[in-house]
């Protein structure tokens, strides 16, 4: 399903709701190729059109397409759409036209179902005709009262450059939506470039327009002009190409920035739980990745319970994952880790054993295979920021979720009783106990908190990664690196560390490839830690022990 949000919705151009819905549906059909039966509207088709559509020869379709394109009625648009998608059939006996609306279901234009058993014949079109239909449908959309439809259609027009200049001029003057008007101007410039008889002045001003407003759709047209024998034209074209390049580079930069932030936020999400258990408590929790695995399984479990409502299941999984992973964390702390404080290297072994058991349990009692997670439609959508630059709603949500979890955690440590006690126990266990803080209880709660946050990370991971018994293993080295790089015991350090690692990774990937980039980052972090053993933000004052 296509999802599209505009950053500049113009409320003024909304005409009537019903009309808008009908047109939107039409555009959807044309753009996504999803053919659906519309409300039946009986209309006598011109005999000439009908004959042309029923003709077994493909070339005979030209006539019908030309006539239907001239007619601006909704009915012709519908027929053209079905024709373009290869969903228009006819019965050679009764000479009736049928629309294919399902795998094996056909209806006539007026909506009656086809009951016969003889196979219907397809009214076929070739690629050239399909393009003609597409531009006819676009031209029709240019008249649509919905500005979004006009924007899409006018953008498609830049690529084709196929329209009479006078028509374009008229459209530009009538257009009141600024984005659509800009697109139409570019389309006119493209049409000028395509026209072999265009005057030099027109070509130069068209190229100047493309230099001002780079349109990747017209790249090929401009490239042709750059090899033109006319020196001025060639120079203007080269300038336009350069500006196109610059724009492409800017877009690539922002895209990389976004991917880097997205990867970084995933790393931060996994690492902040560890920043608490490892950074604040000094426990090396090798089972941290398995806590995230529990969170991801919570999503799968709830989606199995309510298969019809994936979004609700995902949202409900957030508290379930937090509480579930937190409880398991509290059990681990009470059952194992509390015997091993002061012996950090041995907690590593014990938690590694826990991780092994949890993984094996998932493998035995759930499945060795990855579990399918339904991505709710909302998260599967795209969010268009600018021309040629769209970001996935799912990834944006993960960035937002990461920041929300992070700030909630910071606030919890700073403003709540538990946070105060945690900090007190971290700084000086004996004094804290002397002041009446129940250190053992604080330990258990802090460990449960760190594990719960890992569970939250698992919920986010379920949207972008495979959910299976070994999913946690892939992140454990990375998340330790984030915590150590950022500075142990410092949540802000983990945030900065995760984002820096994510960004560095994505910015190095184009030059070195994914694996080499990762290796270089690992080596870079190793050297960084050796230069500055306490990370990006070393603890100061009394907190800095040793």
């Amino acid at each position, binding site marked *: 399903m296509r999802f599209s949000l505009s950053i500049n919705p113009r409320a003024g151009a909304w005409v009537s709701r019903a009309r808008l819905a009908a047109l939107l549906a039409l555009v959807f059909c044309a753009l996504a190729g999803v053919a659906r039966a519309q409300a039946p509207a009986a209309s006598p088709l011109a005999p000439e059109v009908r004959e042309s559509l029923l003709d077994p020869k493909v070339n005979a379709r030209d006539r019908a397409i030309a006539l239907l394109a001239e007619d601006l009625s909704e009915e012709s648009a519908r027929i053209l759409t079905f024709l373009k998608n290869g969903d228009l059939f006819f019965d050679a006996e009764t000479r009736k036209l049928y629309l294919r609306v399902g795998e094996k279901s056909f209806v006539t234009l007026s909506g009656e179902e086809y009951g016969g058993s003889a196979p219907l014949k397809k009214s076929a079109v070739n690629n050239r005709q399909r393009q003609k239909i597409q531009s006819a449908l676009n031209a029709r959309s240019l008249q649509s009262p919905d500005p979004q439809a006009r924007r899409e259609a006018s953008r498609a027009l830049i690529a084709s450059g196929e329209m009479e200049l006078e028509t374009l001029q008229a459209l530009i003057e009538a257009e009141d939506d600024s984005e659509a008007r800009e697109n139409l101007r570019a389309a006119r410039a493209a049409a000028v470039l395509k026209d072999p008889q265009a005057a030099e002045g027109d070509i130069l001003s068209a190229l100047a327009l493309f230099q001002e407003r780079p349109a990747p759709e017209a790249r090929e047209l401009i490239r042709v002009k750059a090899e033109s024998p006319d020196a001025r034209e060639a120079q203007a074209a080269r300038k336009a190409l350069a500006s196109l390049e610059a724009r492409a580079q800017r877009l690539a930069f922002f895209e990389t920035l976004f991917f880097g932030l997205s990867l970084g936020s995933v790393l931060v999400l996994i690492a902040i739980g560890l920043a608490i258990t490892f950074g604040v408590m000094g426990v090396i929790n090798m089972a941290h990745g398995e806590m995230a695995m529990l969170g991801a399984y919570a999503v799968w479990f709830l989606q199995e319970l309510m298969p019809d409502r994936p979004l609700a299941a995902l949202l409900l999984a957030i508290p379930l994952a937090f509480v579930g992973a937190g409880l398991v964390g509290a059990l681990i702390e009470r059952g194992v880790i509390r015997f091993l404080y002061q012996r950090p*290297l*041995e907690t590593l072994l014990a938690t590694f054993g*826990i991780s092994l*058991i949890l993984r094996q349990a998932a493998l035995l009692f759930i499945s060795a295979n990855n579990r399918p997670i339904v991505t709710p439609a909302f998260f599967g959508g795209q969010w268009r920021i600018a021309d040629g630059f769209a970001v996935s709603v799912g990834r944006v949500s993960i960035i937002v979720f990461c920041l929300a979890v992070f700030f909630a955690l910071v606030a919890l440590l700073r403003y709540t009783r538990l946070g105060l006690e945690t900090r007190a126990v971290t700084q000086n266990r004996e004094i804290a106990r002397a002041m009446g803080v129940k250190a053992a209880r604080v330990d258990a709660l802090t460990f449960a908190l760190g594990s719960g946050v890992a569970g939250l990370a698992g919920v986010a991971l379920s949207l972008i990664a495979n959910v299976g018994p070994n999913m946690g293993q892939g992140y454990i*080295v990375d998340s330790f690196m984030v915590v*150590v790089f950022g500075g142990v015991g410092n949540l802000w350090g983990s945030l900065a560390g995760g984002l820096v690692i994510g960004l560095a990774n994505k910015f190095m990937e184009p030059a070195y490839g994914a694996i080499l980039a990762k290796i270089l980052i690992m080596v870079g972090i190793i050297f960084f830690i050796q230069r500055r053993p306490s990370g990006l933000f070393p603890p100061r004052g009394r907190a800095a022990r040793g």
Partner: protein
Amino acid sequence: MRVWDAPTRAFALVLGFFASAVLALSFLPAGNALALGPFTVSVLGKYLCFALLALSIDLAWGYLGILSLGHGAFFALGGYAFGAHLMRQIGDRGVYGSGVPDFMVFLGWEEYPWHWLGTDSFAFSLFMVFCAPGLLAFVFGWTAFRSRVSGVYFSIISQALTYALSLAFFLNALGYGGNNGFTDFKTLLGFDLNTAGAGRALFALSAAALLGAYLVARSLVASRLGLAMIAVRDNETRLRFVGYRVERVKLFVFTLSAMMAGLAGALYVPQAGIINPNSFAPLFSIEMVICVALGGRGRLYGAVIGAFLVNAARSGLSSYFPNAWLFAFGALFIAVPVALPSGVAGLIEKGARRLFPGRAASGPGAFPEKEALNG
């Protein structure tokens, strides 16, 4: 402290008895109930290599307090250095009959790249078995110890080191076989590797190497340097204030330990018949550390016991209880640090004290029950 003390004598005796028994049984005719086939001999030979690796980890962890989670990297580097020589020995007997290994044929290389220079010489390869891991450990240790990276931080960056290397060795373009690594070896120094005799010889060599390494480690621990090592482990800051160059002690022992691990890898490769980037995986290194913890740190022979127990349990349990054995394995990792902090060797010592009261006093080598939080 004497080198040739009671535990050392016992260790040499047990190892010697074990090795000669295995060799003797391997000569029995195949029908005999006690006969050991070539496969069993090579499996036991691999255990000896793991024991050598565990011993090298114990030298650094048990006596210096440095827990390296990346010792598998040194093991694998030694293995790759020796494996490269074995690949050279294949010559044109590969599947494609070309002068270079098959994976280079896939890459379109017709000649050996520069970093394979010298691998055709046995002596140079043997030198690289020690040099490659030693050099890496020297550079890594030098930068780490100089900036006083210690405790869990050192563990984590050593884990990152082996992880980065595993990623690098997965790359085909590196020229070390990528995902598949080195395999399908044919001969070594003119001897066919796929015979029972070669298997016995490699087994005997591994046992000798383990004994040699044990004696080297033992004499190191018994020397004045050994006392300094134990002092580093128990109170690094104090030793530094007394005037010792702590970094030098650490660097020397860490590099030596990496070279031992490299030797273990080199002996492992011809017996296993394969070396691939999985040996660089952090998981392998952690498993070896667990062998040491189970056997008992700071005792040298404890590491050997642990390596044999863990690997034998793995082969035994995984074939009889394919699903349940990982639970048992995990439970073992939890139970040992919680209930048995000094490992199996601690139990043995307790038993020995009861049997021979007053003779086996635990020297400064014994690991303290509560380790100082040096993080």
